[in-house]
């Protein structure tokens, strides 16, 4: 088989696309509702499926945080409506019960980290942008791509169903450390809820693997003619590193979960040893190590935070360059720093375990490697700032969210230096300081990056614009609100206020934060309400938004804007475009932008 044939190993599909387009032109295509909207193999539709599923999860996960913030802000108040809505088991007398509180924080973490910021973020933008920005008809394997979504859907259904069982969902924290998660008798949430959690996560790993394999092979194999690796937009580089991280780290988590399932149901002692019950009785398990689980978990868990933030970084780089009307500053440095982050991602996991009794010498090695991440991160931040510098900035909603991302990433990154030092971490571990740190640097930054992407590519997805007024309200309240919510938590954490506690008002030292907690909770509810405004804007604009009338509304150089306004399956009706230059020819030779498809002029040198 020739390389040409090898490249088009999916030529059956490519032909099918050609036929589809042909048919559509003649107005009698055979796509049914099922193949177009449900079991679709079109990467653009799969991207939208991931996005909308992720949004549903984001609303649920956000609602959970509103409920437990209500508890933290008003620990003594009885909200009768809670009992009416949630029943007397979970909200007796209008107060959130301890078991339910733990279930809420556990599910909030799981949902936001995996289902929103991994499935929803990578799933959406890897699917949508990789073929469109590389000039491919579709993913390397559209069928596996479809399976990837449906495994995600299955994982979602299982996780959702765990909310409705009698003993409630998993409640041992999103990390599910044993022995709590291994012993069904340990808590309500360690019973069936924990099994469903593990099954759902295993399905999620399968989904992520199928997706990741597809993203990698598409990026390597299906770049259009002229699209060398260094001409790819930074979004694609980011998604490539993300996929590689996922493919190499999720399997380790899967191994850890399999061992945990055996501990739960087969009487093994992988993670269990010397467990004494309150009755004074000892369990027979011997020889295992609970710390082993933490190593397996964090070997995924740390790369996972880069799986979340790298796509956001890629989206922000692209949106920022387009809207500053300037080439991204330091393209190769951006690629190199993402590569460095991807490598370091695998070498720092034990910084989550400084207080497990880790050998202090080993700890200091992990401190060094952790602090090294500051170097590529700072390179990226300075490159974003210098991209903005003297730019001809258009403050579109996408651009605002991109700038907001950089602000958040700096704020949260600085506290990472505190936590990365093992000596400081002994004091700060498991306090609200940690909550503040990772919510700002990963949670809010990730979601702001995602919003930047949604606002920027919505016109390409649906052929309509989102409403700008609602977008600006959404942005300002979200950004300011996020700072108001998470900034004060640093003070609480420095004072030693622990995370995951149902009610800290019983401690004299934390009583002083009662007012602050009420303030945080109030802002959290306002910010949540504004996200609903975004959801309204999103669905309203799909049907009623202002129509896109030009092919390239943002004046961008990349290939997705050379496709029709509403591209069919196969993306380009005719030939696939050929690429002649890198993705960032903005403000060059007196022209505002030069598309990648335009050949180099006779007196022009390649970037």
């Amino acid at each position: 088989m020739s390389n040409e044939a090898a490249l088009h190993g999916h030529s059956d599909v490519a032909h099918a696309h050609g036929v589809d387009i042909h048919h559509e032109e003649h107005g009698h295509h055979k796509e049914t509702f099922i193949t177009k909207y449900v079991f679709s193999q079109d990467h653009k539709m799969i991207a939208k499926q991931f996005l909308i599923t992720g949004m549903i999860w984001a609303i649920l996960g956000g609602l959970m945080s509103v409920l437990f913030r209500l508890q933290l802000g008003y620990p003594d108040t009885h909200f009768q409506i809670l009992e009416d809505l949630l029943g007397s088991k979970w909200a007796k007398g209008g107060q959130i019960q301890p078991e339910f509180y733990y279930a809420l924080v556990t599910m909030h973490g799981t949902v936001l980290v995996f289902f929103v910021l991994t499935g929803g973020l990578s799933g959406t933008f890897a699917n949508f942008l990789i073929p469109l920005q590389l000039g491919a008809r579709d993913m390397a394997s559209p069928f596996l791509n479809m399976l990837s979504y449906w495994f995600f859907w299955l994982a979602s259904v299982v996780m959702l169903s765990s909310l409705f069982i009698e003993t409630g969902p998993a409640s041992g924290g999103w990390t599910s450390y044993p022995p709590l998660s291994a012993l069904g008798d340990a808590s309500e949430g360690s019973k069936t809820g924990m099994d469903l959690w593990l099954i759902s996560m295993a399905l999620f790993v399968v989904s992520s693997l199928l997706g990741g394999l597809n993203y990698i092979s598409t990026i390597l194999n299906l770049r259009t003619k002229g699209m060398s690796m260094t001409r790819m937009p930074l979004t694609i580089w980011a998604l490539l590193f993300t996929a590689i991280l996922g493919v190499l780290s999720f399997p380790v988590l899967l191994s850890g979960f399999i061992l945990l399932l055996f501990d739960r149901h087969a009487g093994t002692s992988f993670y269990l040893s010397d467990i004494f019950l309150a009755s004074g009785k000892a369990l027979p398990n011997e020889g295992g190590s609970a710390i082993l689980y933490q190593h397996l978990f964090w070997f995924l868990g740390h790369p996972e935070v880069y799986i979340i933030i790298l796509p956001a970084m890629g989206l922000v780089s692209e949106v920022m360059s387009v809207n500053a009307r300037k080439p991204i500053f330091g393209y190769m440095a951006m690629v190199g720093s993402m590569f460095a982050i991807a490598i370091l991602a695998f070498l720092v996991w034990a910084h989550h375990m400084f207080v497990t009794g880790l050998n202090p010498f080993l700890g200091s090695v992990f401190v060094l490697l952790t602090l090294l991440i500051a170097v590529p991160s700072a390179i990226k931040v300075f490159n974003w700032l210098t991209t903005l510098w003297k730019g001809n900035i258009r403050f579109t909603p996408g651009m605002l969210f991109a700038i907001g991302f950089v602000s958040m990433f700096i704020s949260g990154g600085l506290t990472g230096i505190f936590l990365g030092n093992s000596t400081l971490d002994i004091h700060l571990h498991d306090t609200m300081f940690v909550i503040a740190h990772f919510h700002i640097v990963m949670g809010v930054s990730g979601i702001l990056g995602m919003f930047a992407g949604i606002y920027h590519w919505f016109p390409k997805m649906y052929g309509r614009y989102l409403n700008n007024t609602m977008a600006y309200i959404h942005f300002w309240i979200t950004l300011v609100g996020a700072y108001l919510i998470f900034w004060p938590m640093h003070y609480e954490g420095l004072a030693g206020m622990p995370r995951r506690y149902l009610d800290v008002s019983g401690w004299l030292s934390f009583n002083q934060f009662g007012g602050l907690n009420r303030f945080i909770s109030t802002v959290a509810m306002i910010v949540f309400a504004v996200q609903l405004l975004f959801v309204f804007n999103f669905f309203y604009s799909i049907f009623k938004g202002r129509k896109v009338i030009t092919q390239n509304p943002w004046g961008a150089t990349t290939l997705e804007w050379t496709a029709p306004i509403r591209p069919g399956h196969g993306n380009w009706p005719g030939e696939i475009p050929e690429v002649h230059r890198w993705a960032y020819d903005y403000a060059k030779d007196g022209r505002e932008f030069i598309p990648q498809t335009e050949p180099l002029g006779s007196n022009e040198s390649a970037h």
Partner: protein
Amino acid sequence: MAQMAPAGTKWWSGGKSPFNVEYGKLMMWYFLMSDAFTFGAFLISYGSIRFATNGWPDPNEVFKAFPFIHGVNLPLVFVSLMTFILIASSVTMVLAVAAGHNNDQKGVTKYMILTIIGGLMFLGCQAWEWTHLHGEGAWWGRNPFVNADGTVATTNFTNFFFTITGFHGFHVFSGVIINIIMLIKNLRGDFAKRGHYLMIEKAGLYWHFVDLVWVFVFTCFYLL
């Protein structure tokens, strides 16, 4: 597929596959890397727990039985036979791939059948060994074997043994299923019609990987 490329071809400039392979093979390689991490995590877990445990049973004492011959002391003989069978099935897989390169449909059929038989024999051996150990009282959470120094052992010897050899056996089982599907497709002439036997190559990659993993599993559980 190997193919002569003109000198100076710019492999990475787009419009072609940089490694000169179609996407399926690339995906298989990345999948195998991912799977290697799954097994790696298992084996490192096993190693760390074993390292942290005071004593461990002697494999020469545990794995000394042979089917149909009672009361003999043949340490590691049976598992050596299993290993030989699996490696032999890798050889027949190589021959199947080679036959595919020569577009020899009959040769592919012959060697795929032999590979499937090898896989089934390995699974049969494993089933016998598991049954035998179970008969001796070993299972998940139950370990009748004492440490090499005669002290009471933890159950993690059997826990890890059944989990990891089971996970590997599941891979062999999946491989046999994949090989059977490939055989059927070959008999129906799907590959002959297509003009290439790439699918056989991809199944071969998986099969060799499963064999390679066995070498590590074998070393960790039977030799060390």
